[in-house]
């Protein structure tokens, strides 16, 4: 490789062609480590690989560098243990905001730490002391990520371009030396799922975004498969086989799985960090109506770690796409979305004084997804967020510190508090912050609820707090969605969600009793989630909508999700779930089950008088995961 062509080579390979002669020379690496000795050594090693190295000893500085140079880097290598910011937090931020591949490093090789890296979305995990061989192949992560994007895009467009590109990859001498990589990475490169090219996705695959659209159904299938295999044993290959979805590649599954794990992890209630802030990331203010909902939710989700940033983007993209492409005029009120996201992000952002992030940033919650929210919307959202913020307020301030907008928000306040608020009122705003924790937890519940409302109920009952949380979330979720969603009537429900938002505020905050939501949800939910989760999302979308209407609760947060689905499924009620192609949807489902479930759950759990979960279920067609039943 010719050093002189480093810049060119990086440029050329970045263009997405895949491979240039010089590649991977010129790969632009940002290495972050507080230890000067290690940093020096890494720098030299990377230089020897002919990479372009930028070193940084502080995470904050690294983030700033990344933010200031949006496309300035191809991959980030970061130490886990740093004094000013936890490496995982940084990882989340980067994932949400920039969606760059991040490689974690640590002298700690204990399984749980490595797992943490994986669940937080690290592309790889290197054990210190790092050897040259390990660094030589980091370019594979960049390529893989890009390919994944391309592939998704191709799917959307029914192109088989990737085949050609993919062929190239396998031929590359990929030496996967990452120590913590899932075993599937290697095979993913082989692109065994050539047939997946056939994008047999849902019909709403009009998204141009380079991401697989994880519709509600798809996600349900995914979750079912994962649960069948057991979360610990679920490997993309097997999941893919179980899912048996034509056009789906293992790569898609792997990526989705990663996000899902992240999401689950978050459910376990660790939102302390800055997911929020970073998450709020760059969402284009072009978020369409739908997008806004989705974006917000997605963002929130992403922030909270529930939805991988990618998912968020995807969902947003989907939402946007749908909005844009589909006639389904899902006029998801951006405003609402904003609330959700802005709720988290704006707060966080503002609080943190997001350096670069301004309105844009807020909008950027939907990482990677062009949000059509214009400034006005953003402002609107912000306002909404503000209102929500009341609830979240406590959180908000907190978030400043931590990236986790969501987490922070919730944290400071004491979940319970927030949860209550959320429950009561609208909970949407919080979704990001508060909701997130809840969601994660709740989602499982929610999901369960959705799928098997009974299950959820049971679950929730068990964990008292949880159910409420779930419910709350749903509520809040819904609330988040600006009621104005004008989702095509199919979704009907979504739109209300946004409106719900305001309603939510009125809801009794205490109903939800989210406090323990997070934890409770996780445990029980999870088990129930099997399959339920999947349903939930879709159900959420629809049911949430309906239920909200029925109940008259306004759930904004849910709404977002719903909106999302709604947006997608504007065309058809039934397909709401399907519509939500984005991975987020999947998560949403899981997450939002609360929404739907909330209604249901809430009613079931909290208010006997309300329609029971079961009834709700049927409405939503949980059993069949069909949106058809949605009472739109």
């Amino acid at each position: 490789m010719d050093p002189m062509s480093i810049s060119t080579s990086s440029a050329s390979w970045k263009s997405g062609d895949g491979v240039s002669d010089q590649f991977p020379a010129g790969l632009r690496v940002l290495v972050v480590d507080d230890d000067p000795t290690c940093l020096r050594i890494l720098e030299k090693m990377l230089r020897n690989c002919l990479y372009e190295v930028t070193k940084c000893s502080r995470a904050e500085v690294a983030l700033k560098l990344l933010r200031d140079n949006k496309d300035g880097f191809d991959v980030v290598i970061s130490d886990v243990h740093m004094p000013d910011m936890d490496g995982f937090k940084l990882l989340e931020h980067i994932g949400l905001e920039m969606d760059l591949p991040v490689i974690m490093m640590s002298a700690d090789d204990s399984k749980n730490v490595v797992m943490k890296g994986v669940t937080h979305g690290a592309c790889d995990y290197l054990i210190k002391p790092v050897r040259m061989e390990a660094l030589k192949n980091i370019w594979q992560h960049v390529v893989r990520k890009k390919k994944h994007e391309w592939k998704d895009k191709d799917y959307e467009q029914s192109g088989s371009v990737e085949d050609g590109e993919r062929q190239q990859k396998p031929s590359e001498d990929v030496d996967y030396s990452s120590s913590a990589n899932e075993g599937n990475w290697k095979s993913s490169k082989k692109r065994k799922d050539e047939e997946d090219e056939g994008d047999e996705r849902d019909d709403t695959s009009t998204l141009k975004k380079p991401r697989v659209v994880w519709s509600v159904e798809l996600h349900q299938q995914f979750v079912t498969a994962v649960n069948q295999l057991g979360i610990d044993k679920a490997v993309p290959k097997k999941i893919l086989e179980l899912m048996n979805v034509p056009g789906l590649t293992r790569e898609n599954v792997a990526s989705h799985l990663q996000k899902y794990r992240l999401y689950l992890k978050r459910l376990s209630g660790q939102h302390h960090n800055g997911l929020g802030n970073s998450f709020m990331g760059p969402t284009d203010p072009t978020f369409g109506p739908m997008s806004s909902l989705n974006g917000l939710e997605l963002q929130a989700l992403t922030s909270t770690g529930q939805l991988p940033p990618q998912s968020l983007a995807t969902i947003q993209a989907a939402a946007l796409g749908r909005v844009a492409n589909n006639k389904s005029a899902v006029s998801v009120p951006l405003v609402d979305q904003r609330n959700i996201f802005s709720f988290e992000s704006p707060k966080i952002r503002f609080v943190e004084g997001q350096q670069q992030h301004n309105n844009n940033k807020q909008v950027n919650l939907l990482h990677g997804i062009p949000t059509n929210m214009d400034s006005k919307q953003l402002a609107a959202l912000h306002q909404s967020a503000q209102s929500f913020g009341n609830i979240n307020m406590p959180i908000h301030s907190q978030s400043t510190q931590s990236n986790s907008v969501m987490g922070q928000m919730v944290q400071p306040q004491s979940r319970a508090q927030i949860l209550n608020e959320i429950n009561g009122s609208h909970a949407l705003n919080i979704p990001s912050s508060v909701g997130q924790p809840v969601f994660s937890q709740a989602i499982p519940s929610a999901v369960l609820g959705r799928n098997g409302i009974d299950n959820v109920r049971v679950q929730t009952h068990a964990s008292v707090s949880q159910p409420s949380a779930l419910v709350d979330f749903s509520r809040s979720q819904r609330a988040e969605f600006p009621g104005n969603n004008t989702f095509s009537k199919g979704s009907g429900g979504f739109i209300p969600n946004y409106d719900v938002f305001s309603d939510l505020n009125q809801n009794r905050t205490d109903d939800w009793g989210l406090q323990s939501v997070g934890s409770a949800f996780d445990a029980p939910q999870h088990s129930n989630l099997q399959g339920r989760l999947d349903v939930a999302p879709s159900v959420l979308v629809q049911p949430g909508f309906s239920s909200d209407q029925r109940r008259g609760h306004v759930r904004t947060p849910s709404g977002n999700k719903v909106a999302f689905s709604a947006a997608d499924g504007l065309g058809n009620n039934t397909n709401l779930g399907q519509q939500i192609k984005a991975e987020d949807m999947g998560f949403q489902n899981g997450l939002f089950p609360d929404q739907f479930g909330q209604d249901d759950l809430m009613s079931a759990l909290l208010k006997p008088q309300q329609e029971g979960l079961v009834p709700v279920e049927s409405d939503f067609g949980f059993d069949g995961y069909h949106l058809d039943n949605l009472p739109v």
Partner: protein
Amino acid sequence: MYAHAKDGGGVGGMRKKEGPVNLKIYTMTRNQLQCQAAYMRNSLFDQGYLDEQFVQLEELQDEANPDFVEDVVKLFYTDSARFIRNMELTLDSRPLDFEKLDDIMHQFKGSSSSIGAKKVKRECTQFQEYCKVGNFDGCMRTFQEVKQEHAGLKKKLESYFEVARQAR
């Protein structure tokens, strides 16, 4: 990698591995110096002071960076001074914060391992073990070992670098 110059000690009458090397350096030929350097280096490995990671550093050294290894080692020793300081402060403060001690040592261990300081690393690990069980005495004793190994290696490496530089 291991260029064993078995009789490096015998060349030019330089039999000592350590000790007053400096005095003899100037009387040795370049070849002799090279042998001496190789001998010193190998013994550092043989005696377990250095491990494979040091070789990684050596491989990074090239014409453009002829002093890379030495520079990194210097950097390490400069930086590790604060680890030691921190550690001492924390060991002195009450109540004892084992988690913090473990934390500091973890960092120090990472740093030491990056230059291939094998024995230092081992003592760091031992220290962390004591931290985990809250054994203060064990921690104190091991910390002394850490410091000894740390300082001892420094001298050895300095000697080695001097000869190696001369031998270039």
